[in-house]
């Protein structure tokens, strides 16, 4: 069981890293889009500092949204997903590992890049630390909820369908993630927001793999 899960995780990460342009797409999108905002609203440091947490979080969220078709669509096309479904191991476990590996290969580079972008917005060091922490707690939730959306829309037509399904569910994570960074400006602790992000992550770990595997079974029926 554990051997299967670790093999699956390794396979996912290897597949992801053999297509670095594809895997790093979310990170590149995050950096490029984030750099567009100062060009659009002007280089005023006070304004950039004020909108920084929100802009960084929205860009990270959209970058992750772009990468969401990866975990299932490829395996759906080449038939590997059906092998997963007929495996004797519990499917939610496999789906959870798959999404976890997806988070590791897609979101960790994005989180590593976030301090650089945060410096461009003039965030103070303490706020950058909170930003990284909030991304560490929040992006796994985004990947898990997004995995549920990707499983629901697997093979369906309509490119705007996945964002329409997933973005409303992302709202609490966005509010608490950006709120955690903004709270440090006011001298408040980011503790409550980070706790709520953690609570959301626990809930997502509990429910999303289960829902996503149910959706996959429906999609491949």
């Amino acid at each position, binding site marked *: 069981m554990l051997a299967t899960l670790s093999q699956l995780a390794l396979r996912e990460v290897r597949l992801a890293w053999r297509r670095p342009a594809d895997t790093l797409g979310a990170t590149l999108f995050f950096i490029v889009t984030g750099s567009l905002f100062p060009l659009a609203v002007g280089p005023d440091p006070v304004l950039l500092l004020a909108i920084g947490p929100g802009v960084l979080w929205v860009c990270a969220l959209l970058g992750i949204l772009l990468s969401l078709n990866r975990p299932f669509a490829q395996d759906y096309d080449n038939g590997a997903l059906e092998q997963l479904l007929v495996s004797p191991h519990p499917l939610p476990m496999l789906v959870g590992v798959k999404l976890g590996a997806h988070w590791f290969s897609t979101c960790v580079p994005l989180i590593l890049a976030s301090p650089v972008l945060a410096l461009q917005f003039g965030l103070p060091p303490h706020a950058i630390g909170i930003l990284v922490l909030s991304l560490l707690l929040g992006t796994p939730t985004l990947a898990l*909820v997004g995995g549920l959306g990707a499983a*629901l829309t697997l093979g*369906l037509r309509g490119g*705007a369908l996945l964002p*329409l399904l997933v973005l*409303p*569910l992302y*709202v609490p994570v966005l509010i608490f993630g950006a709120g955690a960074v903004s709270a440090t400006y006011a001298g408040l602790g980011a503790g409550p927001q980070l706790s709520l992000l953690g609570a959301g992550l626990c809930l997502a770990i509990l429910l999303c793999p289960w829902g996503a595997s149910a959706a996959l079974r*429906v999609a491949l029926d």
Partner: protein
Amino acid sequence: MHNPSTFDAPRPAAARSSWMRYASPALFYPLAGRMIPFFAAGAALLAAAGLYTGLVVAPIDSQQGEVYRILFIHVAAAWMSMFLYLVMAGYAALGLIFNTRLSFMMMRALAPTGALFTFLTLWTGALWGKPTWGTWWVWDARLTSELILLFLYLGFMALQAATDDTQRADRGGAILLLAGVVNVPIIYFSVQWWSTLHQGASINLTAAPSMARIMVTAMLLMVAAFWLYSAAVALARVRGIILEREPGAVQAGGEMAAGQTGPRGARTEAK
């Protein structure tokens, strides 16, 4: 990978307990047809009474003047928008647990009505907000949550529209609804979570209402009217869905119930 036809096989109605009897679309179809006129008439009567009480009988509010009267529609619509989402999620759970086709059909039939009430809530709220708060829209927690609820309804309807396979549309939609239902408590408790511009709830069960009794009466009449309207419209829509999916079953059910008229049979043949 189950074959739908195994579930379509006619089972003896007597073998089921009576409350499960109408889970069969074929038997529910005529029942829904008989219920619609009552719900529709009740909705019209209660709406007339509620509007009369709210617009004519109820006194002018001491602080807000005449403007507050739009709340008789706004509050009732807001309650329905959240309540209908919960009802849809309830049908989704029922459908996933008992594998009843009718639950999924009801879930699907309720979605446009729920979206309509959510839109109505936002619209009337904007009309009320302009004279009262001086702005059409504020990024207050409850307004934002209501907007997200509208997105959830639209996402559900878009998923239904994009999926051709009915079984996948049903089950996928049900899973999405159950995921989205996490959002409904957030709507309700958001007022306590963030300190906001929106006033707290005027009616709660533990304290005496802070409104005049006549206003509460008007509001409850409107809620009842909207509730009956939703039932009538959803039943009419579910009849359409049953006809579309199981035209043969409707005919057979009509013969079983022995109370059906010609035009329905003609319509199913036309399809």
